[in-house]
């Protein structure tokens, strides 16, 4: 199967720079999968799991990928994310705590618009991280 050049970069440096067969991730508009030969394309990244398929047979490498943009040009596919963490880099306990904190704020009847907004964003981010771990290790998340 055809491969393409994939670059994943954040402010913390380069996370991937090499060939890949397919990359799937969640945009603000829904999930997309990019294969070689895709038309020039730009979209904004949402909060969710990113899967990088390096070879036909391999399991995908999973990561939490939040914010930023995805751009497809003739030369390469670029993921410039705000947050990008490979599954093995994610702090499970921390994400779990963040999820509980955000949920307690949202259910506490705190009506300050700003705090609710922040809690909502934190909740989506935490959920995205937990989902990645769940998918890669099959740990049940409650």
């Amino acid at each position, binding site marked *: 199967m055809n491969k393409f050049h994939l670059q994943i970069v954040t402010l913390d440096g380069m996370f991937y720079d090499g060939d890949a067969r397919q990359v799937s991730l969640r945009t*603000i*508009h829904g999930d*997309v999968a990019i294969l070689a030969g895709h038309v020039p394309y730009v979209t904004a990244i949402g909060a969710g799991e990113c899967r990088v398929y390096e070879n036909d047979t391999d399991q995908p490498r999973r990561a939490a990928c939040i914010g930023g943009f995805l751009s497809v040009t003739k030369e390469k596919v670029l993921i410039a994310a705000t947050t990008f963490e490979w599954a093995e880099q994610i702090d499970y306990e921390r994400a779990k705590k963040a999820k509980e904190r955000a949920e307690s704020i949202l259910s506490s009847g705190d009506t300050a618009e700003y705090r609710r907004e922040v809690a909502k964003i934190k909740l989506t981010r935490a959920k995205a991280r937990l989902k990645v771990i769940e998918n890669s290790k099959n740990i049940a998340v409650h």
Partner: protein
Amino acid sequence: MAESSMKDISLRIRSIKSTKQITKAMELVASSKLSKAKERIEKSRLFHTIVYNAMDDIIANNEEMSSPYLFRKDIKKSCYIVIAGDRGLAGGYNSNVFRFSTEQIGNKNINILPIGKRAVEFYRRQNYEIVTDEYSIIENLNIGSCHEIGNLLTDCYLKEEIDELYVIYTKFLSTLTQQPEIIKLLPLDHSITENQDIGKNSNRENILFEPSSGVVFNSIVPSYISGMLWSAVSESLASEFGARRTAMESASKNAQEMIDDLSLKYNRARQGSITQEITEIIAGSGL
């Protein structure tokens, strides 16, 4: 007379020695912070180059020019983010930034978002309109605060409170050289003005935006700005430490030279007073 001058000299030597201790300590602190800051710019510089070029590409290939992020007809007010240091004693670091920004600003109608204590003080003294002085401590600035600034200024831009956005920072070339630079962040037409011919001649590929270019730009521009800002802050911090290290290194060297010089004088005075005493004793013994 000889004794009082000896006392004076030894006092001066002592005071210079303690100054030298301070400059030496600052040099060491700056160089340890510098090595951390250097690691940081290596990462952010990568992001900066790749994302800046990708943005250029996206804009050059975008045929729909209706997005408010791409064009602004009347420039009535510009906003400058000026990044300087928190403290002095860094050679010409702070004053270079201010001189450069004064040149760049000219007579435009502007407001300023200063980053770093020195910048806040400088622009307050000059009576410039300041957007916010919340970000006065540059060393405490994290990615989160860059996102806040990005969102704040994008909002201002969309509400047409500002029509242009620039960031002025100091690029870290090496420990010895740092260069003030300016980047235009908004509107995003830098590639069009700079590469006008290239845009026309190259076979432009029309980029597909999903769901639409408006929505995509709304979502990616704030994070693009905060990313650019973060790398500018990283460069500036490294430059500050580099400048301070160099300044303190030469200060320590000067102090050492002065100590050597004064020690020589002190010894000479000591020698002189001993010789004089001996002469007096011999003269007094009435031989």
